[in-house]
């Protein structure tokens, strides 16, 4: 792959939680490394609370990393210091927030947010041009008639309509990468397909890349090139989307794929498989965070954090057992132990 458009190296974010007397560290994202290429859709899936939104917010500079770095077209974000550079980055890498109820400004009509973005980031357009651009992006997300939809206030819109307005705002910037945090979760299947096709078209025709965060695995398969799976703050697997879905290597990915429902068939997962205590992201100790729920866990899984290893070409997995299967168990343990030492020293 040529220089990725967006890259994360050892990205980490720790939050302080709890009351006055019992402060704890919550490791929302721990040591995540990944890249998004040009004209690529990277699907990010995983457990609720595993750090997906935090990753998107770090990339969008809503949160600052506790450790690690982010590179945009090869340049670390920390080097983009001038206001102009910052503005360019914001426009090139807009974020669509997960909750459209709190992310849209309720005091202005929909047109305001979109045209404001256009004014800031698209100096090539005059008032007329902004107007028609705003209508174009609203049409694109299926909000028709666009002129009427633009006059509405966010509180006059349904959940799915707000969600589409959020996506339209990001489109208006002529972005290079869209950080889309569950952009279709409130859409019925028919409208959802329209938006998915739009994302694929953006990639194929306008060479836009997307970080597509979703719980809809089938939709990820439908449009994504690669898939990255998170569990409890860790990236546990990543690879070409079909490969990850057809031969998932990490036991959590296997559980996730098995749980994908088919409306035409009865559910296959039992209550027992599904049950699990909240994942261990609060003051975590070294070791695999899935170990307590894992049918394959060995002793080493409870003591040493498995590193993300490329077990097959372009297919990375963080699991001692999976590494052992391809004769790299010792390497997995050794690298994991070394990383844990560095982590506990920090």
């Amino acid at each position, binding site marked *: 792959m040529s220089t990725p458009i967006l890259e994360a190296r050892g990205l980490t974010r720790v939050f302080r939680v709890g009351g006055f007397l019992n402060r704890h560290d919550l490791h929302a994202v721990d040591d995540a490394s990944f890249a998004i290429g040009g004209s690529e859709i990277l699907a990010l899936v995983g457990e609720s*609370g595993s750090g997906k939104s935090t990753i998107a917010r770090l990339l969008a500079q809503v949160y600052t990393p506790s450790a690690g770095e982010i590179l945009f077209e090869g340049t670390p974000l920390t080097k983009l210091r001038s206001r102009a550079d910052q503005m360019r980055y914001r426009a090139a890498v807009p974020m669509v927030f997960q909750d459209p109820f709190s992310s849209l400004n309720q005091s202005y009509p929909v047109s305001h947010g979109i045209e404001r973005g256009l004014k800031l980031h698209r100096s090539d357009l005059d008032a007329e041009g902004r107007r028609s651009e705003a209508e174009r992006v609203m049409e694109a997300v299926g909000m028709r008639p666009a002129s009427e939809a633009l006059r509405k206030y966010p509180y006059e819109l349904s959940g799915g309509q707000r969600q589409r307005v959020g996506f339209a705002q990001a489109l208006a910037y002529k972005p290079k990468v869209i950080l889309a945090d569950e952009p279709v979760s409130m859409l019925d299947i028919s409208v959802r397909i329209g938006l998915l096709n739009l994302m694929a078209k953006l990639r194929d025709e306008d060479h836009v890349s997307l970080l597509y965060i979703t719980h809809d695995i089938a939709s990820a398969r439908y449009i994504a090139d690669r898939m990255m799976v998170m569990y409890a703050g860790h990236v546990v697997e990543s690879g070409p989307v079909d490969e990850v879905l057809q031969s998932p290597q990490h036991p959590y990915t296997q559980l996730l794929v098995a749980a994908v*429902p088919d409306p035409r068939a009865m559910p296959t997962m039992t209550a027992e498989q599904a049950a699990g205590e909240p994942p261990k992201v609060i003051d975590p100790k070294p070791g695999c965070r899935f170990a307590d729920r894992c049918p394959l866990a060995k002793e080493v899984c409870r003591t040493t954090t498995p590193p993300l290893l490329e077990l097959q070409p372009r297919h990375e997995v963080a699991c001692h057992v999976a590494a052992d299967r391809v004769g790299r168990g010792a390497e997995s343990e050794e690298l994991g132990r070394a990383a844990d030492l560095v982590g506990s020293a920090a």
Partner: protein
Amino acid sequence: MTGTSTDVRTTTTERAGADEPGRDAPVLEVRGLKVVYDTASGPVTAVDGVDLTVNPGEFVAVVGESGCGKSTMLFGVAQLLSPPARIAGGEVVFRGQSLVAMNDKQLAPIRWKNLSVVMQSAMNALNPVKRIGDQYADTMRAHGVKEKAEITKRSEEVLALVGIDRIHLRSYPHQLSGGMRQRAMIAMALLFAPELIIMDEPTSALDVVAQRSLMLQIKELQRLLGFAVLFVTHDMSLVSHFSDRLLVMYAGQEVEFGATRTVFDRPAHPYSKGLLEAFPSIRGPKVPLVGIPGAPPALNAMPPGCRYEPRCPFAYEDCKTVVPALYQVGGSRARCLLHSPDHQPPAGQPVVAVVTDEEVL
């Protein structure tokens, strides 16, 4: 009202309190509900004619296109509408009492205790400047639970039920992930043992494993406690696996209502049929998908006949001018002229499967 309720009783077994009086009465009856938004350019009708019964212990799912009025309908049922929205007609009867006529003071003792609501946006529903635990405590105190130990115990129990670490009782809503906020809301709805829980897309931010686990928990609690659930979702697998009956809405109206299996196997309304076809799968070849062509009508520009007619692959002349009623189709009912004896399609017209009673049984 219709023959549907008899179907349902066979699917809701082991309801708690089955020997109490009035066990056969529905817990919720909605008749001809109509909700209007008074906008700057005049009133628009967002919900126009929903008839719905929910029996004790039953799980009723509601589906429909984005913007078709599902949330508005639920708000109307739960008496949570505020201006510019108002109920312009119809009745909502909960446990034999008419809710529409009640004022806030009369409704307060019922909320959370007998009827709890999980709204579409957990972020909107939770108080952003209050810790989760304090919000639970307020709710319990408002209903007479004063003992601090009891409050803490119950709060930890419901959080455990939805798979959230109890440390988050000390967290503010913004410190939780999207799916954790949704689960915190569901936990709040379970603080008491209500007769009816209304949920508006409560699991849209949950991964499939957590979602399955939560739904199985809810079903188990339903079996133990006997509460009914009215559930809006876009997730057809969830509907298929967990609901007893299914209400399909289109452009503010009820267009089909029947036993979930029947609607899945033989949708009687062309919109339901369109909705059930073509969703992406994780197996098999990847094929381009198109969804249902066209867009729903604007609220202020409803077609004069059937509201689905402009998009309907089965439409014929009459559909443009005749307003369809809800027709009885086997055990379900559907708002489509194909099922009206007086407006049959011209000869040679392709027809959607029309279910008969024999076929359903």
